[in-house]
């Protein structure tokens, strides 16, 4: 069926699409020409990334840690990094080229991005420092948590057990307070002058 059209908008030019269509898919679709390794990446990282993410991608303060945390996903406080958590390497290239450095996004060349990604992989002990990352070698890198994701299964695991007529009376014998926010005491003090 041919849908109604309104003749609005104008054709997008190839240059325009190329400028904005930056997304890279898990199979590598969208990767640009270029290359870099961790040795080059270390220098760039030191200049452009380490102030927040640390010299070894270990993170500073509240800023994201990009390396480490292997095997912690089932722990009490899992450390989720590019190495320990991210399923696809494509995401890091895409995100870094598009949105990093924070506050100066979109300024990295393809070569710089390949080198930075290589350095982050090296920091996660996933490649050797002479591994040259490029469009051709990109899929050679194995991401440890590639199989760590399942599709939303709430329909099967939750909806069924939390449906139906709920209990209305005599639903439990005792009710005890087991945890109190005022004991933890982390809520900002309320003022009426903090509106910007």
């Amino acid at each position: 069926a041919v849908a109604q059209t309104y003749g609005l908008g104008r054709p997008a030019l190839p240059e325009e699409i190329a400028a904005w269509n930056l997304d890279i898919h898990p199979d590598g679709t969208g990767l640009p020409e270029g290359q870099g390794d961790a040795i080059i990446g270390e220098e760039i990282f030191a200049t452009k990334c380490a102030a927040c993410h640390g010299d070894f991608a270990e993170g500073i303060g509240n800023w994201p840690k990009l390396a480490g945390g292997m095997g912690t996903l089932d722990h009490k406080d899992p450390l989720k990094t590019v190495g320990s958590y991210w399923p696809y390497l494509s995401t890091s290239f895409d995100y870094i080229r598009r949105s990093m450095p924070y506050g100066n996004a979109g300024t990295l060349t393809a070569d710089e991005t390949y080198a930075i990604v290589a350095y982050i992989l090296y920091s996660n002990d996933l490649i050797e420092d002479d591994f040259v990352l490029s469009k051709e070698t990109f899929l050679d890198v194995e991401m440890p948590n590639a199989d760590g994701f399942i599709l939303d299964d709430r329909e099967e695991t939750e909806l069924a057990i939390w449906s139906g007529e709920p209990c209305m009376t005599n639903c439990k014998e005792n009710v005890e307070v087991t945890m109190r926010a005022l004991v933890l005491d982390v809520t900002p003090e309320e003022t009426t002058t903090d509106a910007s």
Partner: protein
Amino acid sequence: MSDTFETKKPNRRAFLRGAATAGVGALAAGTARAQTPDPLITETQEWAQTFGDGVDATPYGLPIKFEDDVIRRNVEWLTADTVSSINFTPIHALDGTITPQGCAFERHHSGAIELKKEDYRLMINGLVDRPLVFTYADLERFPRENHTYFLECAANTGMEWAGAQLNGAQFTHGMIHNMEYTGVPLRTLLEEAGYDTAGKWVFVEGADASSNGRSIPMEKALDDVLVAFKANGEALRKEHGYPVRLVVPGWEGNMWVKWIRRIEVTDAPVESREETSKYTDTLANGISRKWTWAMDAKSVVTSPSPQSPITHGKGPLVISGLAWSGRGAITRVDVSKDGGKTWETARLAKPGEKMALTRFYLDVEWDGEEMLLQSRAMDETGYVQPTKAQLREVRGLNSIYHNNCIQTWWVRPNGEAENVEVS
């Protein structure tokens, strides 16, 4: 840039402004008899004698100064900085269902950008017959629709997974707003470009530095997603995506891409940062759910609550709150005053609307005894809002997102309320 919120930072001073300043001590019964004539009645007041402001005083008004505590608030320690961060809607002080835009919460990943209509461009590319560029003016020429929906951040209540942490409905449940949107169905724009039916996904991204790209299945894109330019009757606020944002009914707020600049029809999901590193929900065994798009049925008592204590003593009390579900309309809300031992069905102010906030009330006679207040929402699918224990049983403690548990407020005889967990 991180939205994996911190979970504990001790040694912050508590607040209880409402209790401190709202005259909790005045526990006189509502039927107290006046002993002396009230001068607010017997003496002519200034406002009854002289002039108020002229109609030229306020071309675009703000709330009266006495309401200056009804504002967004942020929690400094949750994020590394304020431009990839979150603030909270003062739901404890609002009523009805429509959120005033000026205090509707914000969540940015690289700040609220300023993008004027003249500079605005929307591209549709990928698996389409005609890749197109629209101006803002073009969008206003397509047939429009109006719909009211809630937008809830996937991380709303996320800080409460490990325990009762933040003391106030604004902080525990305030990553939400509910607006009437005007916009063009995404389907209309996809048809204008001639989408290829082999394209099973759309990838949408914003004009800001963070981009916030997300993959949305074509079925949803063609169903009820709106490309919106008005909210609550006026242009979107800058911080809410001016001039154009995506509206994705019932689905997690992250997908409501602001300042939307590009829609790409693809044959596969992009698996962007915001759907791999973030907005994936780690279970106890270390495996994580992805594409947890729908926001499940949820509710909270907004008053009384920690920031909205009872100040009028015993007698008639309005228990009020909000309920919502991303899977359809709210059909019923039950309220418990004893921590879930017994429940009463509350009154819905209006019949529930699909994927929109619903206001409920329970009008009670408070005897001045302590209460453990809870609310429990049900939606048209029959789903019943679970307890936190039930959620933890399935998911563990590390999901970060999608915490739709039943909330408990411990209301004391003096009217103060506290965020607690109960057995």
